[in-house]
């Protein structure tokens, strides 16, 4: 049941992304670089591989799928069910954990294993996490380079859409199949809200300072989105299914977004994992919102 309570207070977005950015106190001591790293968070795993620390990674979380190399590594559980015994038996010298994994952290600390405390936050935290993880794993130079290139890419996207009117956008991360119920949308904080802002969209739920908002029908109608952008992690859903899903919005036929046929769905892992590919994800959003700017 403890797992349940945790999920309850964990915003849906964290649940969706299962990952985090925001660095908190890298623990490993200076001098020796860790060479047996375990990360149970997809975004952190991606960062480690992008930094060139891939060969130092010995195990990953059960939801990690990128880069493809991780599929060959042992999987040791995830946010709610880390396999502590397995992790300890692999004798890691650095474990990247999520900030809420208190039990795992205690056990690792008792075993004298260095941890890197991770928390999911805004877009700026992605690059600061990259730098911090670079320092912690002995890849500081590559980290500076990578973080710099992400920042430049984001600035480039921002520059392209600057000056264009920002459409009022409802960024949806999911609703019940075949019905406009249980709609979750991005609120005014978090990396998705930041990505939307850079991509030249105005979040209709910007005033709600939560990462995930359960959007009621009334609020959606009242906020009159010009664009509805449904984002989802890559899945096996068929094209026909996707089209049928997009049609459920016709139930709110008077919304500007529905009337002007600007209900779009973006299915891509880069949108839900705040790792090194965030700029690519942001570009996807920008292209959807401002197709003319990318011609």
């Amino acid at each position, binding site marked *: 049941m403890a797992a349940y309570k945790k999920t309850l207070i964990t915003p849906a977005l*964290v649940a969706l992304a299962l990952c985090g950015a925001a660095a908190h106190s890298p623990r490993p001591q200076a001098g020796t670089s860790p060479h047996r790293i375990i990360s149970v968070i997809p975004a952190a795993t991606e960062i480690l591989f992008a930094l060139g620390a891939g060969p130092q990674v010995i195990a990953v979380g059960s939801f990690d799928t990128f880069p493809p190399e991780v599929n060959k590594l042992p999987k040791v559980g995830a946010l709610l069910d880390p396999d502590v015994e397995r992790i300890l038996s692999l004798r890691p010298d650095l474990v990247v954990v999520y900030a809420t994994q208190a039990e795992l952290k205690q056990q690792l600390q008792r075993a004298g294993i260095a941890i890197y405390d991770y928390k999911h936050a805004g877009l700026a935290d992605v690059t600061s996490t990259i730098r911090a993880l670079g320092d912690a794993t002995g890849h500081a130079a590559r980290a500076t380079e990578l973080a710099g290139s992400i920042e430049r890419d984001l600035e480039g996207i921002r520059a392209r859409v600057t000056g264009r009117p920002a459409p009022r956008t409802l960024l949806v991360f999911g609703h019940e199949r075949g019905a406009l119920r249980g709609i979750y949308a991005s609120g005014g904080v978090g990396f998705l809200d930041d990505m939307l802002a850079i991509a030249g969209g105005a979040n209709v739920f910007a005033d709600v300072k939560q990462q995930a908002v359960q959007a009621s029908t009334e609020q959606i109608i009242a906020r009159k989105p010009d664009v509805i952008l449904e984002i989802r992690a890559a899945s096996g859903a068929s094209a026909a299914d996707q089209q049928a899903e997009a049609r459920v919005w016709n139930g709110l036929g008077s919304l500007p977004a529905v009337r002007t046929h600007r209900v779009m769905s973006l299915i891509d892992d880069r949108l839900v994992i705040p790792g090194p590919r965030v700029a690519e994800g942001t570009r996807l959003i920008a292209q959807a919102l401002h197709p003319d700017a990318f011609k």
Partner: protein
Amino acid sequence: MTVGARVARTVTAFGILAGATVLLAPLVGSTSISLRRVFDFSIPFRDNADAQIFFVARLPRTLGGAWVGACLASAGVVFQGLLRNPLATPFTLGVSAGAALGAMLAITFDWSLTRFGIPAVPAAAFAGSLVAVAIVYALAQARHRGLSTSVLLLAGVTLNAFLSALILFVQYFADFADTYRTLRWLMGDLDVSSYQPLLAALPLGVIAFAAFAWLARPLNLLSLGPDSAESRGLNVAFAQRAAFFSASLATGAAVSVGGPIGFVGIVIPHLVRLLVGPDHRLVLPASALFGAAFLVGCDLLARTLLAPVELPVGIITALIGGPFFLWLLIKKR
């Protein structure tokens, strides 16, 4: 005063309460709308956000709340009468756990019936409730010629526990987003956003309420015990089956629309009995009407207290219903 006059007076009183709640609830919400604009038909509907909020968001939601509340409260009365147990609820016999398992499976495995124009989650929830009803009924029927209420109760409680374990099992393998969604489903939600779910559930409700209307007298007789009821000319086995199936049907239909919203089915019947006495001819219609008003009121709080954010309605009913029920329990001793 004759029974007919008392029924008329009770129904009128509770009917006014329910009617007033249903009329007033759509006027309030997380946004402020102008009633004049809502009913200004010179503005095209697609340009009239106030009218859309009223007719697309608030009205179906209020009607849904009223319908679910009426179903759950009267199903509670019938289950309490059938099982002769004041602690029985519409969820005691596993109907809601069956529905929950159906919904869980639909969410976790991402079932889609969209191409057939049917939302998968309510459909799976209703199917799940039917399976649970069939299992409990088969068990209670197995070793008795009639329906054994004690076996019914034990089988129901056990099935509840078993299905809950299956729910946890399914959830454990779901990914986090799905786990969150299923958990949210369990807290109840009446934001139906169209009239379709209500129309789909309506025929089931009509059948169930027709049965409830007939059941008032049989339930009065059953409260004396099956033997006395039999000796007074009641076909006990038939009445029990009718009660079991109609109350289960109402519960399954209500849960598939709004999720397993707790406490309505236990608090409302007891409160109504305190007000009008134990006669089911009064308790049944009064509970249906009061349940409707109660749930519409709770949902009003759910959608306005933290606006623009929503609170799950099941949390409100439990927060109000729980302490109230405990107070009732102590007071009755």
